[in-house]
Structure formats: structure tokens, C-alpha cells
């Protein structure tokens, strides 16, 4: 890292003084600290997922092309997505922590040396704008190319992810891919805001006194200063004698997504890589237990991301509805009506129009409700300012619905791991008979109640959040101001429950044969 990229100390200190972090039980006290501080802790979690990714690529490219019988399609579209929402809801961003894409980092560092100089990520893209474009493209491709039904395309999607991680982090500083390009990671970032854990400073005073900020910039630790041998260091040298609970000597990188521990107010952009834990010489990083969604009521994105992040939150909430609606009858009626009205059989055109309508409609509705809420509260600010105040309400709504949707698929097919693995070996000549009767995790009658309960739980959090924001920013007048957003919350929840209650229809039967 160059000197010019470092955040000036006075700003860091001011941010530290302004920091707002939950205070709660430190999960690292449960014996996890020693594991996390181990240099190869992340690798130990990444390797199993790397092996699974390689297996999925192999089976996707060479195995049976029937989606429910292939490791690629079942692991990506069924198990990964279901487990992801469960882990986000009860732990935190564990999938980013164990992300195998980051194992390309060694190769990207070697390739980086071949470059005359490393490029700088364009300042106009240092937000979530590119991600918004990529997300829309991804959701369109998902529907248009039936990614869920194609092991071959799913395998290429995984390869594409590895290739993109390698390419971006070779050409640009490490962490650029995670923060500005990775769709999966950013989905996790957005909804890790619902998680009951957060990285915090165990004692903010220690951070204020800390000179080099190793959790941000990294550190190097040896028994003797490298300067004595004329060697350059990649980060500040902190002698071994100064380190509390030393976890070895060498280079310990800091936060690649540029988060400074005592100022972390949100799980946004935190990959749970725990570099900060290893880099901190004073053992001052905690994994604090907090109420789920604690940060939503504290406007955590005011300093980092602002409008781009809010558009991502609002977009994901409404795209979640559309993604699930594409599996119920009324969606097909709408599509067929639209196709007849426009006299077209172009699925791309119809999908593009639907995405545009839902994106603009969702954003317009949320902004209008937020603006009206501000007006009722006596504020005459801009619609954007209103959206930045109230937009957090879409986070519990979005997570509640994505969670219910992914849980539905997970609960209907999680144990299919067994027959899919059996089928893989059968496909390659082993005398194993897959037992396809093993599929569902819970009785079918439980699926709707579980999904509805998940939605209801996060709707209750959205209602609570709306009330908190109203009373926080408008005092007694907040009782009136909160109503437009409460109505939006209830409408969203009603639509969510209605979608979950519809009989499912499988994608791929709308405008033409997909078999």
C-alpha cells in the first residue's frame, strides 16, 4: 500500500471518536480467538469449498445434464443459497469468510509482478453502481438462459467467478473484486446487516492510542527491525516485544476492503476474513453479539456508500419479489398478456421490461413513501435525503423474502445431497443405486408456514425499525411520519405472503420451448 492511499490519522481518530458499535458478548472468548488468529485459519475453511467448487465444475462440464442430478446445479442453486441465508440469519457472513475465490490471490500476486504498474480502480466506480448493473444483468441472464437448469452453464458461472476474481485482483488492488465486483459477496454484505454478530473494537481506547492502525494497513513483526538488514517492509514494523499474544512473525495484511475496526458501523463490506484479528498487535478485535439488524437503526451507511448502497438494498428487496414471482401462475399470465400486447415473442424484451418496471416501481414507491414520511414529519428535504433516512426499512423486508424463498428450496431438497452424490458415482460406472426418495427435509405441509414465519419475523423487525426511525428523527411527530413507510412494509409483507401461498409453476414454460 502506498502512503497516498492511507487514511489520514486525524480523520481516523475523528471517526473513531464518532464510532458507534454494539457492546455485547465477544464470541472470540469461546475459544475461537486462538483458531482465528492462526495464520492458516481461513485456508482451512476455504479448502473444503474449493474442493466442492472443483467437483461442481467437473460434474457440470462432464456429468449428467439433468439439473437435479448434478453436483453443480444442486450445490449452487439449492444448498449454497439455502445455507447462506440460514448462516446470515444466525451467525454472519461466514460464506465470504470461507470464500474459495480468494485462493486465486497467490496467483494474482505473481501475475501482478508482470505488470508495469497496478491500475487504480476508477473513482467513479468506487461505489455500488457497477454492482447494480451487474446484478440486473445477472438476474436477466438467470431467467433468459435458465442457469438453474443447466449444469454446464452453472459450471461456467463458477469458472467465470474464479476468472473474474483473478483478473480484477491482478489488475487492481486486492479487495477490489470483493468490494466492487462480486455479486455473491455484495448480496452477503447487504444482508449481513441482518446478522447477530459484528466486528468491533474490544476497547476503543486501545485503538485511539494505536499509532500504525495495523488492522487497516497490516503489520510486519520480527524480533529485530528489518531496517537493520536494509530490507523494505510492506507494512508498519511492530517489534515482537510490543505484540500481545503474538501469533507468529512475518507479514499480516490488514483489511482489504479498507475497514478500520473502531469505526466499523456496519457489516457492509466486511468479509469476516479476520485479517484485522491477526494484524492487531494488541488483541483488541472482538466478534460482538448484537441484536439482529442492530445497525439498521443507526444509519450506518451515512459515511460509506450512501446512495449506491441504498439503491442496492431497495433493488435487492424488489428483485427478490420478481425472482420468486417468476415461479407462479400470475407471472405467466402477465408475461403472456405483455407478449400479446407488444406482439413479440422475445423473452429478452419481456424480461427487460419487467425488470425495468419492478426496479423503477420499487424504487419509486419506496422513495415516494419516504418523502411523504418526511413531509408528515415536518421536513421539506429532497426525496433522496428521505430515501437515505428510511431506505433501511427495505433491508429486513428483502432479507425476509429472499430467506423464505431460499429456505423453501433448501427444505424441499437439502437431503438430495445423498442421491446426487450416489448418482455421480453411478454415472462414472460404480454400482450404486441413487435413492431419489431422499429429498425433503420437512413435510410439505410445513413449507408455507415456515416461509411465512420467516417473512413475518423480518416484517416485525421492519415495523420496529420504521417506528425507531420515526421517533428518532421526528420525536412525537414521528408517530404520524412513520405511517407511509408502515403501509409500504405491510404491502410488501402481504405481497410476500401471497407469493409464497401460490402454487408453484416451474420456470421455462412461458414463451417457447426450453427443453
Amino acid at each position, binding site marked *: 500500500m502506498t502512503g497516498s492511499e492511507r487514511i489520514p490519522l486525524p480523520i481516523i481518530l475523528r471517526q473513531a471518536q464518532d464510532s458507534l458499535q454494539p457492546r455485547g458478548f465477544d464470541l472470540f472468548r469461546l475459544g475461537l480467538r486462538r483458531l482465528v488468529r492462526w495464520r492458516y485459519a481461513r485456508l482451512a475453511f476455504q479448502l473444503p469449498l474449493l474442493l466442492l467448487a472443483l467437483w461442481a465444475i467437473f460434474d457440470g462440464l462432464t456429468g449428467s445434464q439433468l439439473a437435479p442430478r448434478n453436483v453443480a446445479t444442486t450445490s449452487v*442453486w439449492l444448498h449454497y443459497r439455502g445455507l447462506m441465508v440460514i448462516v446470515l440469519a444466525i451467525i454472519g457472513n461466514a460464506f465470504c469468510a470461507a470464500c474459495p475465490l480468494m485462493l486465486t490471490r497467490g496467483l494474482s500476486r505473481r501475475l501482478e509482478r508482470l505488470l508495469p504498474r497496478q491500475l487504480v480502480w476508477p473513482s467513479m466506480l468506487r461505489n455500488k453502481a457497477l454492482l447494480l448493473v451487474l446484478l440486473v444483468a445477472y438476474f436477466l441472464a438467470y431467467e433468459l438462459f435458465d442457469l*438453474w437448469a443447466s449444469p454446464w*452453464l452453472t459450471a461456467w458461472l463458477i469458472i467465470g467467478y474464479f476468472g473474474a476474481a483473478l483478473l480484477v485482483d491482478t489488475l487492481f488492488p486486492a479487495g477490489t473484486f470483493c468490494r466492487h465486483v462480486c455479486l455473491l459477496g455484495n448480496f452477503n454484505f447487504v444482508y449481513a446487516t441482518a446478522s447477530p454478530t459484528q466486528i468491533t473494537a474490544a476497547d476503543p481506547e486501545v485503538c485511539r492510542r494505536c499509532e500504525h492502525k495495523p488492522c487497516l494497513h497490516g503489520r510486519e513483526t520480527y524480533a529485530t527491525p528489518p531496517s537493520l538488514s536494509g530490507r523494505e517492509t510492506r507494512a508498519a514494523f511492530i517489534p515482537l516485544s510490543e505484540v500481545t499474544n503474538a501469533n507468529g512473525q512475518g507479514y499480516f495484511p490488514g483489511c482489504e476492503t479498507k475497514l478500520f475496526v473502531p469505526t466499523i458501523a456496519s457489516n457492509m463490506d466486511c468479509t469476516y476474513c479476520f485479517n484485522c484479528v491477526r494484524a492487531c498487535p494488541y488483541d483488541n478485535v472482538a466478534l460482538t453479539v448484537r441484536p439482529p439488524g442492530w445497525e439498521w437503526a443507526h444509519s450506518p451507511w451515512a459515511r460509506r456508500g450512501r446512495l449506491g448502497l441504498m439503491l442496492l438494498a431497495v433493488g435487492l428487496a424488489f428483485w427478490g419479489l420478481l425472482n420468486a414471482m417468476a415461479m407462479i401462475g400470475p407471472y405467466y399470465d402477465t408475461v403472456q398478456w405483455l407478449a400479446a400486447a407488444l406482439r413479440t415473442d422475445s423473452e429478452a424484451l419481456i424480461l427487460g421490461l419487467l425488470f425495468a418496471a419492478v426496479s423503477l416501481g420499487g424504487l419509486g414507491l419506496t422513495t415516494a413513501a419516504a418523502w411523504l414520511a418526511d413531509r408528515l414529519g415536518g421536513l421539506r428535504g429532497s426525496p433522496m435525503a428521505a430515501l437515505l433516512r428510511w431506505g433501511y426499512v427495505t433491508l429486513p423486508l428483502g432479507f425476509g423474502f429472499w430467506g423464505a424463498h431460499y429456505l423453501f*428450496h433448501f427444505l424441499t431438497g437439502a437431503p438430495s445431497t445423498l442421491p446426487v452424490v450416489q448418482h455421480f458415482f453411478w454415472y462414472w460406472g460404480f454400482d450404486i443405486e441413487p435413492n431419489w426418495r431422499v429429498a*425433503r427435509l420437512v413435510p410439505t405441509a410445513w413449507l408455507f408456514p415456515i416461509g411465512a414465519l420467516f417473512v413475518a419475523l423480518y416484517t416485525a423487525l421492519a415495523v420496529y425499525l420504521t417506528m425507531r426511525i420515526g421517533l428518532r428523527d421526528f420525536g412525537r411527530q414521528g408517530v404520524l411520519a412513520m405511517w407511509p413507510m408502515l403501509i409500504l412494509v405491510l404491502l410488501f409483507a402481504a405481497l410476500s405472503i401471497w407469493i409464497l401461498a401460490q402454487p408453484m409453476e416451474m420456470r421455462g414454460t412461458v414463451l417457447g420451448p*426450453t427443453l
Partner: protein
Amino acid sequence: MLCRAICLLALVLTLAACRPPPDGAGAAARLPPGVTVEIALDAEPRVATVPVNITITRDGAPLAGATVTVTGDMTHAGMIPVVAAATELAPGRYRADAFAFDMVGDWFITAEARLPNGERAVAVKMVRVERVAP
């Protein structure tokens, strides 16, 4: 510059070398030599019970005494499969009476037969369950 050129070249070569599998490739069908397995539905596929008929022959002659299971899967991973055992109506003719489509959409039906000599025969048929106007 060199790195960019290498990456671009690798990408182009990789993409050019790989083509999607042709229709029906890797469809999990697997038949011992001389054995045929035909799958036929009793009626147009719809969300209802639609018995499935399986005809098994070896070298053109009906093959009796097989144990046949019919499985219906949707094209999306994670949907509960429909599994029904077939009974033998006549030598080489089997029927799964209880087979029921429970959802509109694209399905593939797999007939898996354990033959009397212990061999396994697997055949796959794709069908589309259409929506029926109320």
C-alpha cells in the same frame, strides 16, 4: 501489458475450445446392450395422476421380471421428486399407476429398471406439463 495479453489469449482459447453439450447429452440414460426401455404416458401431462407405461425389451423380445421405479423430476434442483413403483402387467410391460405430476413446468421422467440378471437399465423422457385454463 503482457499479463493482459496472456489473460485475454487464455480466455479466448478456453471459450473457443468449449461448446455446450448437445441436446440430450449426459441425460443419464444407460441401457445394457440389446435392451430398450420406452416410456409412455397414459394421457396428456397435466397436474394430476397420469399413469406411466414402461416397455422393456431385450433384442426385440419382451423382458419380464424386472423391478421398475419411475421418478419424475423438474428441471430445477431442489424440487421434491415424484417416485412411483411400477407393477408388471404382462411380460415386458410395466405400469406406474400412482405417478402424479404436482406442478406445471418442464419435467423429466426417469425409468430405472433392475433386470432379472442384476443389470440396470435407465431411460429418460422429457415432458412438459402445460397449464390448463380454469
